[in-house]
């Protein structure tokens, strides 16, 4: 007898966690990007917002990313393999793009958070801004693609 897919029964719960924390990541990374740009333009020694979101954002991102990884096997079999590859290959390709962009956002978000948290020298303090803005752009695209794909078909959906 074939084993059930990993977390098959509880996939909708993990999807909710992934979505809720994912939206918190969107908010946090947007704030970090705004603070990192402000930091690059100012001569002040530090920025409270950059320090706060430099700590909060990596934690939120890692939780959302881990929830997505846990969901992935069930999604691969029940959604992509059974439905999207057959009936909506474009949505399947967009999911592939989403997973790559999320993986590439990981070092951007962590790196920007570290750089923005301790801006103690003028010659490197501006370096957080490009990575934070690029990371925020990726996270927004990933969130919108995730919403779109879930609207096409989500884990736990009826056959």
């Amino acid at each position, binding site marked *: 007898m*074939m*084993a059930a*897919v*990993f977390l098959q029964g509880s996939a909708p719960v993990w999807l909710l966690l992934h979505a809720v924390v994912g939206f918190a990541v969107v908010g946090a990374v947007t704030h970090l990007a705004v603070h990192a740009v402000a930091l690059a333009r100012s001569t002040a020694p530090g920025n409270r917002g950059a320090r706060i979101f430099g700590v909060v954002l990596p934690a939120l991102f890692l939780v959302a990313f881990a929830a997505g*990884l846990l969901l*992935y*096997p*069930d999604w*691969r*079999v029940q959604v992509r*393999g059974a439905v999207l590859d057959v009936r909506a290959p*474009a949505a399947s*390709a*967009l999911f*592939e*793009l989403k*997973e*790559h*962009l999320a*993986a*590439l956002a*990981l*070092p*951007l978000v962590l*790196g920007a958070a*570290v*750089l923005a948290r*301790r*801006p*103690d*020298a003028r*010659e*490197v*303090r501006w*370096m957080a801004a*490009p*990575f934070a803005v*690029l990371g925020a752009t*990726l996270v927004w695209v990933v969130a919108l693609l995730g919403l779109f794909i879930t609207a096409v078909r989500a884990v736990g959906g009826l056959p």
Partner: protein
Amino acid sequence: MTAPAARDATVDRAPAVDAAAECARRRAVVVLAGIAAYAAGYLAVQLSHPPAPLYDPVHRVWLVGRHAHGMLMGYFGQVLYAAVAGIAAVILTALATRRRPPGPRATRLIFGLALALMVGVIGYYVVTVVGPLI
């Protein structure tokens, strides 16, 4: 005219500012090397297909292989390899810059390399995945 005490304080502060700048440059270079190595590692796995962990979600088993056919999932292995490359770069750069911190020019060069690599890898995936849909 500057008082002797104030003049001494100015002289003492200069090396401290240099040390803080060196420390900040070192931290930035370590982070940038990690970002660059992660991006390069992620794309290298995609292009060179090294033996990597693959997950079979149907049978719930892990395998090692070069190509993810059918339901096999290569994503976990690709992220793992990229993360290992990024962490290794962070450790090696931290060790290499411990005695000799990077200068401003080297720091800007590594910043440009990391940003260009990351934008290039993102562009690669956008073009190869979205291109066929258009």
